[in-house]
């Protein structure tokens, strides 16, 4: 009883893995449709070895209701991270399911190079909500063009909520070049007090007062 030790070596495994079913492509795709969420979840995780299944995984994500399975699908899709994944995830930003949308935003944020070719089109979409979700992607996208895309929103978009979302992100990622565009923004919305507040806050943040070394 009490503390027991099994092995004497650093490297060998503590336990032998025991898989109940083969993990081949066809078998995993079949398990992705299984009624048991745990089996679907493991299939989703193991399909990372088969990047050509990205389309199926995205389709499953769109219809999956169980959180652990969704999370596994998303982890695998981020790891695959190819253009097919991004092409299939972007339309899911139109989903009525807020949890799914948030997952998609999180995934797209982690795939900056694959997302970049789509961003201009996303920001010009007729649906204002969709444009806001696209700005949410930019909120944590490591791409050098992000400030320029947001500046274009501030200069051209005619929806106050879309512009406010862009201003909020620019407060973090913007530089002095965007200040003129920000300064004229309240006028475009009849000097709306909310927009004025957003813009002033953003400009203060962007300007800072850091000395040069």
């Amino acid at each position: 009883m009490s503390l027991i030790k099994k092995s004497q070596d650093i490297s060998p495994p503590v336990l032998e893995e025991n898989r109940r079913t083969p993990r081949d492509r066809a078998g995993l795709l079949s398990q992705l449709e299984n009624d048991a969420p745990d089996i679907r979840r493991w299939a989703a995780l193991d399909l990372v070895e088969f990047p050509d299944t990205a389309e199926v995984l995205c389709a499953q994500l769109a219809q999956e209701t169980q959180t652990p399975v969704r999370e596994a699908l998303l982890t695998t899709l981020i790891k695959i991270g190819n253009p097919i994944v991004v092409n299939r995830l972007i339309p899911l930003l139109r989903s009525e399911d807020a949890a799914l949308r948030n997952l998609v935003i999180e995934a797209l944020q982690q795939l900056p190079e694959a997302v970049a070719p789509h961003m201009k089109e996303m920001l010009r979409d007729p649906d204002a909500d969709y444009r806001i979700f696209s700005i949410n992607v930019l909120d944590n996208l490591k791409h050098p063009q992000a400030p320029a895309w947001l500046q274009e929103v501030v200069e051209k978009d005619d929806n106050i909520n879309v512009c406010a979302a862009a201003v909020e992100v620019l407060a973090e990622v913007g530089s002095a070049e965007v200040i003129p565009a920000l300064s004229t923004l309240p006028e475009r919305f009849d000097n709306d007090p909310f927009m004025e507040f957003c813009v002033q806050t953003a400009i203060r943040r962007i300007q800072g007062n850091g000395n040069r070394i």
Partner: protein
Amino acid sequence: MNSPAAPTISEEEFQKFRDFFYRKTGIYFEENKRYFVDKRLIERIKATDNETFRNYFVMLRFETSGKELQQLINLMTVNETYFFREEYQFTCLVKSVLADILPRKRCGEPIRIWSIPSSSGEEPYSLAIYLLEYWPQVNAYDIELIASDIDTEILKKARQGRYDQRSISHLPAHLLHKHFTTTANGAYQISDDLRNSIDFTQVNITDLNQMRIYRNFDVVFCRNLLIYFDDTSRRIAAEALFNALRPGGFICLGHSESMSRITPLFKIRKFPEAIIYQKPLR
């Protein structure tokens, strides 16, 4: 010629940095940490040959590799380990968590506890000592303690179990006396009984294949590891930890870390001694 002016961080810049750093790490700096934060930020601004905070922040924000963010996290966090660090979690283990786990144990089934990253061993040995000293039922159950790290050199040090004064400074004197001997050069050598009670293994938590063998743990201590990962690696590690736990198993993170910010896979359990995360039973 005058030497260049020392850089400063304005209030607005501090707030901008604070928001960004919080989002990336879950660590929030109050105003009274201004000096601490400014000093380290300025150090990194200089080290990266940036002229201003603004330039440095752009680099930090958009750097694809995330290396500078890692450097900064290293500087901003107390990156040290010692015996009984964040002791309230060990107290929670022996007073609350094990009592929650035991009803689900079949007769003769061991309790499995995992320390990752084990670093030089202070955490897993602390767990062993805590269980032996403060859990009244310790002799009624088999307990498997597994300690893992990605670094084989640090694992060798952990297995050796030899520590300096700083490592043992938070240990009560009677426990130090009971479980350690002093070596000729003034180091503290942990007892062979304790050294032989822990399995040390090498693993990369983000490697799905390596992680397949780590299963059926009742409790995982994974403290101050996830904050060093980028978003993708953090998500992969969270999945791996979920896989490693039994249903109903618990995970303890560092005090500044939040699993809820990474994944909804775990639920929060509030015990009198600590708030920790649990894999749902179903």
